[in-house]
């Protein structure tokens, strides 16, 4: 895949505030790319910089090989779906979608067909005559999509497009956006603070903190091998334990507080890990409670149930283990015949060194 968007050394200041710090980023042709991070991390600023609503303070931005310096938003091959959708309330749905075609030399009938095609693509065929302000949130979102896509941009920018929708609607739109992206085949850049949304939809995710990109990877790598404690705690649930690297070789020997000595595969540690103190991350689903009569060939440690949270399909246990600072969170599927343990039950926890992640700091 070729690179469509290239940012090199991009900085953005608002007065003294450093909103974007030395961003280097390549976004590929046809990928679903997400900018993920807590509010105020600069992800929206970065998106607006690509769209042309913000000037970079320094650094360069190329889209499709063209330098975007001095190119205003209306001349960039990008279109945007705004967080508020920004549907023009004084125009009908059809007029909204046709707005971008005003300077298009095509005839009226041809434009009308294009509008109808765009509306059908987002599942709003026949809605052209409706008043825009009478639409529901999900419908507005679709109009905003149709309005942006009708111009056949090289990049579609989505600024927290699903944050205003309820949970059910959001999940439905996630699937539709992915389908739409495959269908039109253009690059989508999504800004979101919802890590689950980013994991579900993206080919690659850039996790941002305080104006910097903390990690850029595909969802699975990001989840399995976060490169820092802040990425690990931002994405999914993670137990953190204290540990000490004793030897670095083909495998990494670690002394984990409360769990004991083990050897962790080298790819589970940051490059250049050296002996010394490190944080160890363990995902709740990689730990298991051993119920009565169950056996395992994995390593086992004894503990006591400290807290039980029942979710229906899953139960989350906090298990206190001697030598471990905070109780470990363990998620268990509620399979047939498996009881829900009470607080205070003595139990055994199975763990595996292959699921440990070594984290700097």
């Amino acid at each position, binding site marked *: 895949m070729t690179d469509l968007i290239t940012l090199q050394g991009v900085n953005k200041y608002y007065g003294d505030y450093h909103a974007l710090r030395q961003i280097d980023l390549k976004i590929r042709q046809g990928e679903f790319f997400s900018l993920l991070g807590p509010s105020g991390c600069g992800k929206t600023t970065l998106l607006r910089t690509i769209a042309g609503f913000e000037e970079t303070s320094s650094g360069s931005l190329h889209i499709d090989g063209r330098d975007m310096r001095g190119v205003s938003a*209306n001349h960039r091959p990008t279109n945007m779906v*705004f967080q508020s959708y920004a549907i023009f309330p004084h125009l009908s749905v059809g007029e909204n979608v046709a707005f971008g075609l005003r300077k298009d030399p095509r005839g009226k009938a041809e434009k009308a067909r294009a509008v109808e095609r765009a509306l059908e693509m987002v599942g709003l065929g026949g809605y052209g005559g409706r008043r825009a302000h009478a639409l529901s949130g999900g419908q507005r979102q679709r109009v905003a999509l149709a309005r942006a896509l009708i111009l056949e941009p090289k990049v579609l920018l989505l600024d927290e497009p699903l944050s205003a929708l309820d949970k059910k609607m959001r999940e439905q739109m996630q699937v539709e956006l992915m389908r739409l992206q495959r269908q039109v085949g253009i690059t989508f850049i999504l800004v979101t603070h919802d890590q689950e949304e980013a994991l579900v939809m993206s080919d690659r995710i850039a996790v941002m903190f305080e104006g910097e990109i903390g990690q850029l990877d595909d969802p699975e790598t990001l989840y399995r091998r976060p490169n820092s404690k802040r990425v690990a705690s931002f994405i999914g649930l993670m137990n953190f334990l204290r540990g000490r690297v004793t030897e670095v070789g083909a495998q990494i020997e670690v002394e984990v507080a409360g769990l004991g000595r083990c050897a962790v595969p080298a790819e589970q540690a940051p490059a250049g890990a050296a002996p010394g103190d490190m944080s160890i991350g363990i995902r709740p689903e990689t730990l298991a409670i051993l119920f009565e009569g169950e056996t395992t060939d994995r390593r086992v440690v004894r503990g006591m149930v400290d807290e039980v949270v029942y979710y229906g399909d899953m139960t989350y246990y906090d298990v206190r283990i001697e030598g471990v600072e905070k109780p470990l969170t363990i998620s268990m599927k509620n399979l047939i015949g498996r009881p829900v343990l009470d607080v205070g039950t003595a139990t055994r926890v199975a763990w595996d060194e292959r699921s440990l992640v070594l984290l700097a700091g």
Partner: protein
Amino acid sequence: MSLRIYAIAYLIFLYAPIVLLPIFAFNDGSIIAFPLQGFTTQWFGELATTAALHEAVGNSLTIAVVSALLATCLGMCAARAGTMAEFPGKRGITGFIMLPLVLPEIIVAVSLLVVVVRVMGLSLGNWTIILAHTLICTPFCIAILNGAFQNLDRSMEEAAMDLGQSRWGAFRLVTLPLVAPGIVSSLLISFTISLDEFIIAFFLSGNSPTMPVYIWGLLRFPDKLPVVMALGTILVALSILLLTLAEIMRRRGLARAGLKDTGGFL
């Protein structure tokens, strides 16, 4: 209960004098006193045949229309800058341009008189009144248009630009239609303010008076009083009509944009 009495007394105090206007405008007697003499429309007839009045009304209408247009244009620039842009000293500047709202008109009148006649050595005319009326109307326009612009989603203009429009195109095709009701409302209110403004017009009019100044002149002739009443009646009716229109436009604007009411003048 006492609150209700207070409210009723308040309303009587506020509106009784105005109610007297139409009553005596249709009263068949040149003395303004009860009991009423009978119904007549002769005072309105007299209005129609007074040439000096027509000239005064002409002056007033010209001044009101021009100052309303000027004040609304200025108000629009200020409101847009005040709500959609960030710049240093914004608070101070906004406060400063709203100042004429509380500045006594007599001060505006006297200072302009001095500037125009003494400093610049120009003669008075409708244009001096237009200048002064623009000055006093602009803060009202800003107040009204601020509401219209504040309700506007900032991303609207950005969306229009994103869809290929220039800055001006985005303003013309999206912002302008959305604030149009506010503009109409601002035009109507500044028109009304200018139309019945007296102090400034009295100081700054040249040889040809505006309508309020003309009415004031009529008061010296007691037998003309019913004619003034008739004229007053027409003015009150017109003012109410215009203000109602302005409010309807403002509310329609809110409804069109699907927004909630954040308070206006009425």
